[in-house]
């Protein structure tokens, strides 16, 4: 271990902004990306389910008419 | 094989010359874009002389981009492209012919016009000659690489801008060696190396591009 205190760790020898700016953006985007993929998946699934339900309902109503 | 290529060149030239307005407007675009730079950065001669190779080459790239969509779109619209794809001859040869014809009506005029514009930037005689030469050698590569892009985006939404997005990054090596050749002449280093590499890119571009282009056209025609 290498740092004498948390304050030193965060300061990164006066380069703190740059180092944590990099870590921060990288972490944020690497969280955002999968979140967006999951949202996309859920949206698609919801849309398809609505579509299937509508098709099912139409099919059964047509069957009942016969 | 050569006969096929020549026949295609002759046909495309004839068609292009019927629409002279398109060719001339591309040249005027070149002139206008080149003139924008001094208006943007100021008329100081030293600065303009340094900027000239890059500015002229970038303007040439953009003017070429403008003429690319037309490469296959007209033939596609009236069904000729489909007919050409169905002939027993290799489609890639047809593409090569169209590519060379495109160079004759777009790259070649640019190369001949550029030295005149170079005078506006205070380029020396040597540099003007190298400028012309670099464009003569480099623009076939632009036609080749551009053909790939034109084929990929044939009939696709957002055509022209999408085409630029795809093709401009691939143009960068040609730009580097082309503008670099003129720059090297200005600094007295000699343009030999640049022009040789440019030549290699041109040969590669012209002779390898027809294959992916033909493949992309077939996909577009399906």
């Amino acid at each position, binding site marked *: 271990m290498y740092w004498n205190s948390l304050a030193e760790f965060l300061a990164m020898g006066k380069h703190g902004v740059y180092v944590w700016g990099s870590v921060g953006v990288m972490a944020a985007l690497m969280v955002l990306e999968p979140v967006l993929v999951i949202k996309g998946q859920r949206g698609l699934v919801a849309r398809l389910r609505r579509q299937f339900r509508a098709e099912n309902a139409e099919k059964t109503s047509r069957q009942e008419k016969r | 094989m050569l006969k096929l290529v020549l026949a295609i060149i002759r046909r495309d030239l004839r068609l292009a010359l019927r629409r002279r307005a398109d060719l001339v407007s591309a040249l005027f675009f070149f002139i206008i874009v080149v003139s924008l730079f001094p208006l943007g950065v100021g008329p100081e001669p030293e600065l303009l002389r340094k900027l000239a190779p890059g500015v002229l080459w970038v303007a040439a790239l953009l003017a070429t981009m403008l003429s690319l969509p037309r490469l296959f779109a007209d033939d596609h619209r009236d069904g000729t492209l489909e007919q050409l794809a169905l002939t027993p001859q290799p489609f890639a040869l047809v593409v090569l012919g169209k590519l060379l014809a495109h160079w004759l009506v777009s790259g070649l005029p640019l190369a001949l016009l550029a030295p005149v514009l170079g005078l506006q930037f205070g380029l020396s005689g040597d540099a003007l000659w190298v400028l012309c030469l670099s464009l003569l050698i480099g623009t076939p590569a632009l036609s080749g690489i551009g053909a790939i892009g034109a084929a990929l985006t044939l009939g696709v939404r957002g055509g022209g801008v999408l085409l630029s997005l795809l093709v401009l990054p691939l143009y*960068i090596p040609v730009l580097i060696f082309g503008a670099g050749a003129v720059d090297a002449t200005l600094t007295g280093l000699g343009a030999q190396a640049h022009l040789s590499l440019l030549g290699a890119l041109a040969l590669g571009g012209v002779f390898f591009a027809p294959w992916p282009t033909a493949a992309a056209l077939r996909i577009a025609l399906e």
Partner: protein
Amino acid sequence: MSNKHINWFRFASPQAFYPLAGKMIPWFWALAAIFGVAGLYVGFLVAPTDAQQGEGYRIIFLHVPASWMSMFIYLVMAFWAGLGLAFNFRLSGMMATALAPTGALFAFLSLWTGALWGKPMWGAWWVWDARLTSELILLFLYVGFIALQSAIDDPRRADKAGAILALVGVVNVPIIYFSVKWWNTLHQGSSVNLAKSSMAAVMLWGMLLCALACWMYAIAVALMRVRTIILERERHTDWVRAELIQPADEV
């Protein structure tokens, strides 16, 4: 006597791959987390301060893995796309489409971390050195691929067109890199050398672990994305219907 041979080609069908991918995803996330923690531990807590660059150099533990991944993903993307073009494997093309945004993300992160590294070290947010400029061009290539596929409505045509573009791109990347290097050395504007000339073993380990973390992450996200793509493309099939229909939907 059960047949112990798995027919791997079975998984070339989207229907078979969908559940397989679903099972693999958590494992890759776990691996990403493990490698990530290990890599950051080594990079931020174990590796010593650099003599010339102070603490700011630690950004390389993010910048270098991002660069490596951006280039590696492009190769893998082009490989899958090419395979799909050559053998008509639909799943191959879907995988390439799934990888592209992640590759573009890493290219962007490489540029971002590169800028944040450059500013304290060399005083400028951006330097036109060979590596950063090539990385920028790689980002353009990714954007072009994504834009082309988005613009084409027919998925099969989009796959094939993207494959041609990716393959042309792969061939061009060395040419572009070489020409940019040439351009940079000739112009000698910034004699900046972003690569560390001598690297302590610890630093290499840190970069390697972080790179592995990024690789596992990329696979996890790509598998997640490809599942969405599979559902979208195969939405007219019975198996998708069966997969998604809930009991409440049945009338």
